[in-house]
């Protein structure tokens, strides 16, 4: 059996299982929409219209995809080295705060220097927030999962405190810092019909660099080797601990970048609760894309469309936006069951070829 699957030149089973996942998710969502008395096709129609119906809607979708794509890339790089980073949300929040503070308190720089400084500040602060779990994991073997969950909870509480007491803005009605300097705001590519910042260029560049690093450099090859088989990589003389620590920090930096771009581009200041869970959006995207940076961009585009389109769906079809987290939940749950889906599609493929003998 094992050898037979290896023989087929195109791994149909691998292609079939994501298709299965998306189809099942659409099916369950449709049943749910039917259950509350709306027409699913009509709801999907309004969702697509809201996300792609006009040029302005398309721009909105693209600008929504930027932080999601960064989060996806952050999960992707760590998953390629066989590490699952769910501390993204905390790193993203602190990255955003770092960028906002650099934009707020560093004055007198031209925009050309100030923006990179803020972005780097965001990356470093995201990375620093990832430092403690990384050290504990690599040095002492403390499980990442529980520490990351705790770090996320701490981040949410600390950010609420920092934004409402030490760095509180002049407007006491909202929990936010003061607006950043004009020189720190990301410049716009388009201003009408809707605003689009250069964030999208940064994320595409990052994805290209990541693809090049993973596929065309020795270090990227060693990183992937760690992900495929940690023990084998270690015996081959690859410094697996360094790669583990490295991807965790890089992942933190990318998450920080997600927060920075959102703060500097969309809000111009740090709002408490500016992230509706971008960090968790990254997980299903990276897993559906199998850690491929360009796949992540496509996935982020679709998730951005989901978030933007659901607003229109709520207004026009009366299906509340909570459906987004239902869809995401179904996707993640099905991704976790990927093994059995792969097993089923493998059986299906083999059966068609008549290779399965009882």
């Amino acid at each position, binding site marked *: 059996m094992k050898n037979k699957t290896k023989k087929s030149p195109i791994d149909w089973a691998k292609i079939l299982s994501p298709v299965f996942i998306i189809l099942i998710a659409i099916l369950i969502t449709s049943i749910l929409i039917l259950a509350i008395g709306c027409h699913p096709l009509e709801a999907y129609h309004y969702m697509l219209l809201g996300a792609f119906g006009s040029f302005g809607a398309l721009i909105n979708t693209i600008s929504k995809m930027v932080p999601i794509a960064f989060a996806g890339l952050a999960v992707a790089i760590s998953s390629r080295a066989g590490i699952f980073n769910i501390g993204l949300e905390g790193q993203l929040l602190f990255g955003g705060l770092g960028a906002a503070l650099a934009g707020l308190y560093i004055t007198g720089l031209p925009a050309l220097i100030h923006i990179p400084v803020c972005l780097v500040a965001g990356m470093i602060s995201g990375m620093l927030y990832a430092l403690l779990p990384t050290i*504990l994991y690599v040095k002492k073997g403390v499980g990442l999962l*529980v520490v990351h*969950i705790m770090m996320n909870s701490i981040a949410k509480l600390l950010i609420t405190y920092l934004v409402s007491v030490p760095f509180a803005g002049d407007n006491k009605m909202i929990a936010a810092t003061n607006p950043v300097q004009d020189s720190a705001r990301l410049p716009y590519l388009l201003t009408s019909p809707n605003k689009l910042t250069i964030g999208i260029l940064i994320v595409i560049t990052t994805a290209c660099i990541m693809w090049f690093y993973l596929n065309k450099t020795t270090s990227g090859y060693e990183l992937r080797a760690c992900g495929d088989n940690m023990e084998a990589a270690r015996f081959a003389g690859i410094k697996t601990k360094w790669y583990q620590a490295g991807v965790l920090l890089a992942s933190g930096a990318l998450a920080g970048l997600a927060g920075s771009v959102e703060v500097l581009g969309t809000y111009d200041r740090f709002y408490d609760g500016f992230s509706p869970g971008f960090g968790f959006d990254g997980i299903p995207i990276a*897993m559906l894309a199998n850690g491929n940076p360009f796949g992540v961009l496509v996935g982020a585009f679709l998730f951005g469309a989901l978030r933007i389109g659901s607003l229109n769906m709520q207004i026009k079809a009366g299906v509340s936006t909570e459906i987004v987290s239902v869809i*995401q939940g*179904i996707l993640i749950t099905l*991704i976790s*069951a990927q093994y059995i889906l792969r097993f089923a599609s493998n059986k299906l493929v083999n059966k068609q070829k008549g290779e399965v003998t009882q």
Partner: protein
Amino acid sequence: MNGIIVAMLIAILRLSVPVIITGLGNMFSVRAGVMNLSAEGMMISGAFCAVLGSYFTGNPWVGVLCGILGGVIVGAIHSLISVEFGGIQNISGLGLNMLATGLTAFLCRSMFGTAFSPTVASIQYTRILSNIPVIGNVLAQLSPIFYIMILLFLICCFIVDKTVIGLRMNAVGFHPQMVETAGIDVWKLKHISVLICGALAGLSGAYLSIGQLNTFMDSMTMGKGMLAVIAVQMGKQKPQRTVIIALIFGFFDALQLRIQISSIAIAPELVQTIPYLVGIIALALDTSKNAAPRLLNPYLKNKYKF
């Protein structure tokens, strides 16, 4: 002063009930080698189903049963994926959390039009106990689920250490292969432990919605399920230790609420971070790493291998 201490004690007990019940459930699951991050989802599902049961029948005890059922449903999905089909436990847990939180919010809005359900019959007080002299008034302020919890704790202590099934569950967590060789159904044990976890988490969700309040709110669990997961991890899957850690979490939660209503100039958020910081330090200083670890990954059935 005496009044404050009593009020504080009641607050601690009331606030730690959900973490304790979910923690006890989660302990079974982790002991049998199934990491269960979906505790949060089980709780919110339990909370919502409890309100539905109470809303449609008017009887809060039917609500509690529905709540348990709600938790078991999420538990069944989790055990189907991560025990039967060899899926990735952590991701399944996270996905189910998101799914349950989203689905309950979606259904609540679709049924009632807002993020709140209407108020339903609840079981916030145990009136029978108020006849007891001296402490009766204090005891009556706690929900009956609190007393169920004490009973559950004693049963759990007995099951994990003194019964065959409890010891077998523990063995499955360490050496599934060995247990299978001994002729015991590994998967059945794992399924049972995850379903127990679902039932208990559902009960604690019912406590949140109709034991502490009388209504359901969007994402009302607010990280309590994750606290339970952490309590189990820090308590090393022992019922007594888990309960103590859950009580410590409850203490800081009560302290934070007290600071909010008093005029002390400490940010309540900072007080709330203390248990997490203590948790991280405790995990970092833990020296018992050399003991054989529990295998928190799926043990695949032969028929699904390829």
